[in-house]
């Protein structure tokens, strides 16, 4: 007998009460999110329809959207966001998978190594970025010193001073920070690959590369999709690293959409337009999520009995 259980008489209202119970369980979460996420979003949408100058607001309909879309800044930021996100996520997945595979083979100091590789992800992104800012300092930073000593560069490089190297540096820091997350998921996934499949493949004469391609990868495929999706969600909204290291410069080389949003809201003081950028971002998010639903339906692994 379960503690707290009392024999209840049959009342005949079972099904309705069941549904009512169901709502009760999900209601707290829904109410909470409605208050904390949906309401501010709605307010942001309402703001995007106004021309805001401080405490003075006037309704202008869709004019903010027109202005945002006709200015170069938005399209440029979109393009930078796309490059930044796709390169970062691709590297996250490749390096994360690689590290997971490597760590899976190693027996010694397993836990210690895992914790070690998790550390960049555990530190606040802004703090990680500040450390790298200091490391990449042209005159006094240790990276230029080491590269110079190793003979790899002739003169100190201004990492964050040139558009291309700034983009590379910022991407590198994002990769440093984000690989552990994917690695963690992949490590977990590797442990669920049934050993019998490996054994069967070996018996069939498959070598390491073939075992990887025909046993490991199919089993990991779904998890890879999950990992990259979560990763994309994380990277798209990311502003901390770029905010600390370059604030969107030099000459807009690292101005991703969240940076544009922040600058429009708090530097240019155009809340209406900033909200419009946010809503446009939301629309892009929605379309992406529709695509995601399709893809995961296709890629769902066969249910286990």
């Amino acid at each position, binding site marked *: 007998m379960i503690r707290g*259980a009392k*024999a209840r008489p049959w009342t005949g209202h079972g099904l309705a009460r069941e549904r009512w119970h169901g709502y009760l369980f999900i209601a707290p979460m829904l109410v909470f999110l409605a208050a904390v*996420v949906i309401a*501010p979003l709605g307010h942001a949408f309402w703001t995007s329809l106004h021309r805001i100058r401080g405490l003075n607001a006037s309704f202008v309909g869709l004019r903010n959207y027109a202005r945002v879309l006709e200015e170069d800044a938005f399209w440029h930021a979109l393009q930078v966001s796309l490059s930044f996100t796709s390169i970062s996520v691709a590297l996250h997945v490749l390096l994360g998978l690689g590290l997971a595979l490597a760590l899976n083979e190693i027996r010694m100091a397993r836990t210690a190594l895992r914790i*070690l590789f998790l550390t960049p992800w*555990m530190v606040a992104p802004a703090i990680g970025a500040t*450390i790298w800012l200091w490391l990449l300092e042209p005159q006094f930073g240790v990276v230029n010193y080491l590269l110079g000593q190793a003979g790899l560069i002739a003169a100190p490089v201004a990492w964050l001073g040139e558009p291309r190297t700034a983009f590379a540096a910022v991407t590198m820091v994002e990769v440093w920070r984000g690989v552990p997350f994917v690695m963690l998921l992949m490590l977990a996934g590797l442990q669920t690959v049934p050993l019998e499949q490996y054994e069967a493949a070996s018996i069939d004469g498959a070598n390491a590369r073939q075992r990887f391609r025909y046993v490991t990868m199919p089993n990991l495929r*779904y998890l890879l999709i999950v990992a990259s999706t979560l990763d994309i969600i994380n990277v798209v909204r990311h502003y901390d690293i770029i905010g600390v290291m370059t604030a969107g410069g030099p000459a807009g080389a690292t101005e991703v959409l969240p940076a544009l949003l922040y600058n429009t809201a708090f530097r240019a003081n155009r809340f209406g337009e900033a909200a419009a950028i946010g809503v446009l971002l939301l629309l892009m998010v929605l379309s992406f999520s529709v695509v995601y639903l399709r893809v*995961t339906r296709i890629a769902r692994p066969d249910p286990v009995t």
Partner: protein
Amino acid sequence: MNRNGATATVLLWGAVLAAAIVTIFPFYWMLNTSLKPASEIFLSPPSFVSRNWSFAAYETLLTLRPFARYFLNSLIVSVGSTLLSVALAALAAYGFTRFHFRGASVLIIFLLFTKMLPETLLIIPYFRLMSELGLLNTYAALIIAYSSFALPFSVWMLIGFFRSIPREIDEAAIVDGATRLVAFFRVVLPLALPGLVAVALFTFLISWNSYVWALVLTTDPQMYVLSVGVANMVGEYRVQWNELMAGAVIAAAPVMVLYALLERHLVSAITAGAVKD
């Protein structure tokens, strides 16, 4: 082991060690800088190990600046939001897996993707809401905000986890006369512990590291959290690098300890939760 095997192992270890160095070097440098005296920070060439290492920067932080208080605030806010988030997520995940709702998966995915929105968009309306509720400068405002960040992801992950717990178990309890709620608490929840731990760790991490919300929602220095305390040391006109790095170490250490202790649960939870959807 044949020659190929030996080469492979060497290459493997080589790659892992190289990756380890790149991963950990910034933290070593952070520690190094935090222990140096101010005069040695700008040495060219920079010093890797210093005879003058001392804990002076840490002392300054804990005595002259209320870092201990910041630490406590961060702890309260993070633990609070973790408890709230886990509770709401567990209830919701149970509801989604034990009851049938049309469009449930669409709703969850949509909520997950709203996390793509930058914080900047939400802070002003949220501030106004909290101000009207009289919750500025309270732990409550931050706890509520932070719980909402991790909620969609937590629900999503716990759904996967709860699905792996067979319904027959709760049904057996209900047949025995327990209500749904009792079945949830006494039967299902204990089985879901690894998943709950994983969700708790994620939420704790997000809350502990968050900055923009605390920046805007707290004005009383007694209520500042660690991330705000560290950021305040970056003046545009002066950055005390050794103190800044010491602050960063203090901010990062607890999370690392927590993860070191609970890492095993994390892996098993992800295994259950994310793999089986």
